[in-house]
């Protein structure tokens, strides 16, 4: 990433031109931008994470390199149990999420089924709710004394421990994350060439055997990509176990150690290393699995999978399955809505009465949270799209040395769990004092915004890259040939043409940053600095605060929903605009 820059050579025609180009780098504004971004990412991502790694391998007393912390970790039965629990919960969430996603993906891609659009849209609704928000509502519906178990007890005299301990985490996580599998698996299934299936039928294969021997193996890369994502998200997640009061898992242990014992306790760092290693391992596994399996997307003379008509009985069954799954998937939303409008909801299938009081309480107590959220997410998303646009331009349009490294560095944030970034910031920035404000950088509100910025940068970067890839180079060259400088060209041609993509990136970053909990919970130093997600966490700690917490949760859902819809509308409108401007 470093390019040594000797003092700018004087533009003496002759000498500089005769020297090889690498000896006399022409430092442009873009070079400086690249350098600044690189420094920013090193400081806000690489250094904090490296700090965490180093501390994990240091003797807390002497600072000498040691593996003792890891030995201690695995000698403590609570940590061993947490490790196993995290692993078990992640694996089981993948299994349950698959059980939800597979039928939906199969039915929608394989059959002409009028419910397909319903599934395609409702299937994504879980993603617009932060998982921890739904957790408490799920307790009230599926918990020991929740709606479902009360009814089961009344009717059949049985109870099912949906939400007991780890089961609760698995249920909430798989309901929240199954869309990742659904999206990837559906895309893979749709991309299978029709002739692949027909060739198998032609040779005598059909039904379940056809699916097992040909269709599913061909969709495997998409499935693995989705499953790896679910695994890693669940493995890293802090909010859901915390809200369900399940503390014997890795992320909650890291949080509790740091928040109760302090940032000098090495166990939080050891856990961070394990989280990062698992993140990278599962991304790597999915990469290995996908390598060399760029399976035939639609080939010449082919077409997407043939859709079959359902027989009436099959149709009834398909609708049954779909409705059941959708009910399950929507239960956190339904529960949250009931909770937010309910008076008292305890030992009863439904709340005792309905009121708006929770929203009033919420508004009176949460103004700061909401304002903070708008501020933090706004700052983070603005920086994200500025940096994202710059990186996209540098990577795609320039030949600056190390440009690809910028992309990798920004994207690497995906592999860093929020807890780890939070711990890294605490460790790295607690000793740096902010002048004028007179407090350590680690407890200044700006650091929360910066953490959110780093966490959401990969998403914004992808949006900006996609947008820039659609701007033809010829449009820039036309401007330059008419005398516009590089900077004017970027200002007047490139950025305006990228507006749609940039805006979509902004909205996505904003909406997801607004409900992020795992990094922020580590960095919030006082309630006055807390954002909305932290506010929900605080409300949910007491039974009396639940109603208001649910109301705030509804606010969060609405924010993310509006963001998602807005970014979709922007992208669609941009596409149309582009299509109408295109010459054919």
């Amino acid at each position, binding site marked *: 990433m470093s390019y040594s820059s000797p003092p700018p050579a004087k533009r003496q025609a002759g000498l500089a031109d005769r020297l090889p180009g690498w000896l006399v780098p022409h430092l442009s504004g873009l070079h400086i931008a690249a350098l600044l971004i690189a420094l920013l990412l090193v400081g806000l991502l690489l250094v904090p994470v490296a700090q965490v790694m180093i501390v994990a391998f240091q003797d807390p007393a002497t600072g000498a390199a040691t593996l003792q912390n890891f030995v201690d970790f695995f000698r403590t039965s609570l940590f061993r149990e947490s490790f196993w629990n995290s692993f078990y919960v992640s694996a089981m969430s993948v299994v349950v999420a698959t059980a939800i996603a597979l039928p939906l993906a199969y039915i929608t891609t394989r059959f002409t089924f009028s419910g397909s659009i319903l599934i395609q849209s409702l299937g994504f609704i879980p993603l617009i709710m932060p998982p921890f928000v739904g957790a408490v509502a799920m307790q009230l519906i599926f918990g020991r004394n929740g709606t479902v178990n009360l009814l089961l007890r009344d009717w059949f005299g049985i109870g099912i421990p949906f939400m007991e301990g780890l089961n609760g985490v698995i249920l909430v996580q798989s309901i929240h994350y199954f869309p990742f599998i659904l999206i990837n698996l559906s895309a893979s299934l749709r991309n299978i060439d029709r*002739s692949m299936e027909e060739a198998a*039928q032609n040779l005598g294969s059909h039904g379940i055997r056809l699916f097992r021997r040909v269709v599913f193996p061909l969709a495997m890369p998409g499935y693995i990509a989705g499953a790896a994502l679910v695994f890693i998200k669940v493995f890293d997640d802090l909010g859901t176990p915390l809200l369900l009061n399940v503390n014997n898992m890795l992320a909650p242990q890291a949080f509790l150690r740091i928040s109760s014992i302090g940032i000098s306790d090495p166990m939080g760092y050891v856990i961070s290393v394990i989280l990062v290693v698992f993140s990278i391992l599962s991304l790597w596994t999915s990469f290995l699995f996908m390598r060399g399996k760029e399976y035939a997307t639609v080939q010449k003379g082919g077409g997407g999978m043939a859709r079959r008509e359902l027989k009436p009985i099959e149709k009834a069954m398909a609708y049954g399955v779909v409705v059941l799954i959708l009910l399950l998937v929507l239960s956190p939303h339904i529960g949250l809505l009931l909770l937010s409008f309910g008076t008292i909801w305890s030992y009863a299938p439904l709340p005792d009465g309905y009121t708006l009081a929770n929203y009033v309480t919420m508004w009176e107590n949460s103004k700061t949270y909401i304002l903070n959220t708008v501020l933090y997410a706004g700052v983070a998303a603005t920086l994200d799209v500025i940096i994202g646009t710059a990186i996209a331009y540098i990577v795609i349009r320039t030949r600056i040395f190390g440009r690809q490294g910028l992309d990798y560095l920004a994207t690497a944030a995906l592999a860093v769990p929020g807890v780890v970034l939070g711990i890294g910031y605490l460790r790295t920035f607690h000793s740096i004092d902010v002048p004028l404000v007179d407090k350590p950088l680690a407890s200044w509100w700006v650091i929360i915004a910066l953490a959110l910025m780093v966490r959401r940068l990969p998403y914004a970067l992808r949006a900006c890259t996609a947008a820039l890839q659609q701007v033809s180079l010829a449009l820039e060259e036309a401007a330059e040939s008419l005398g516009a400088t590089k900077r004017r060209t970027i200002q007047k041609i490139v950025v305006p043409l990228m507006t749609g993509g940039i805006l979509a990136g902004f909205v996505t970053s904003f909406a997801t940053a607004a409900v992020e909990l795992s990094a922020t919970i580590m960095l919030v130093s006082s309630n006055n600095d807390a954002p909305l997600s932290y506010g929900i966490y605080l409300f949910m700690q007491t039974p009396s605060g639940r109603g208001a917490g649910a109301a705030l949760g509804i606010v969060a859902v609405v924010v993310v929903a509006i963001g998602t819809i807005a970014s979709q509308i922007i992208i669609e409108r941009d596409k149309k605009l582009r299509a109408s401007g295109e010459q054919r």
Partner: protein
Amino acid sequence: MERAGIKIEDVHLSFGETKVLKGVNLEIKPGEFFAFLGPSGSGKSTLLRAIAGFGPTPQGSIRIGGRDVVKLSPWTRNVGMVFQSYALWPHMSVRENVGFGLKERKMPARQIRPKVDAALELVGLQRLAERMPNQLSGGQQQRIALARTIVVEPEVLLLDEPLSNLDASLRVQMRRELLRLQRQLGLTTIFVTHDQEEANTTSDRMAVLDGGVIQQIGTPQELYDQPANLFVARFLGTANILKGRVESYGDQARFVTATGDSLSLSGSTPSEGGNIVLRPQNIQISREAGRNALPGKVLHKEFLGSQIRYLVEAGGTEIVVDQSHSSGVDWYEVGADVHLLANTDNAVVL
């Protein structure tokens, strides 16, 4: 292997509102190499897929070896199909691909192995058995697809544009290979193509399709020499078509063109219709007038090596004339006034 004939009777098929096949009747003899030839959108692939059981269920009947298969599922028909894209499954090795159908038929593994080896040997690729499809060239994939289909001993073999994804020289080699295999196995085979050269060189008989209707059925020579209509005449080779009318005087007949020139017709030429079809090689170009001569002017000429192709304005249209080339032959310059001497023995009036 069992040889089965195919009998197609009054087959209609629509995609939604669009009628793709409009009353197709066709009989293919056991062991015949039969080609469906037509432009894209003519319905040839749709007809082939209907025989295999893919796409919407057609009306009418399709009999394979006497059994009506219209209502049968594809996996119960026992017809082998080679797809245009080959459709080799990328997650299975060559051996697994070829053995797939046998395994579906619940054949024990120890019987599958020798059969797969034999099929691979037949296409000359036994050494590639353990490779994955993405490690094969286009021609090799084509052969594996063929081996995978014939190993299950289907009653008929269907080839959907099997050569279209190969480069030109390989295409010539593969079509000879296909023909050799077909003769060796005696398998009733249907070959779909839009390339008349492919159809001409391989098939015993062929059907030319256009607009979902069979235009003509016959051997390649019959179709070339005796096209049933203008579409077939134009589609097979180059055809010069002059408009005009037939005039008869007793048992003598002549064709009078729109420009008033007259061409005498031999007794064997059917004498109904307002068009005469002349192939380029049946016209001589000359500076002198003579019998059956049309006066004209050279518009364009192309040197093709063994031949010189002239475009001549005559008889109210532009006529393509091929003259074989040897050194020292008289050349006609663009703009030259010439006469075209038509050999009407091979002409067809439509």
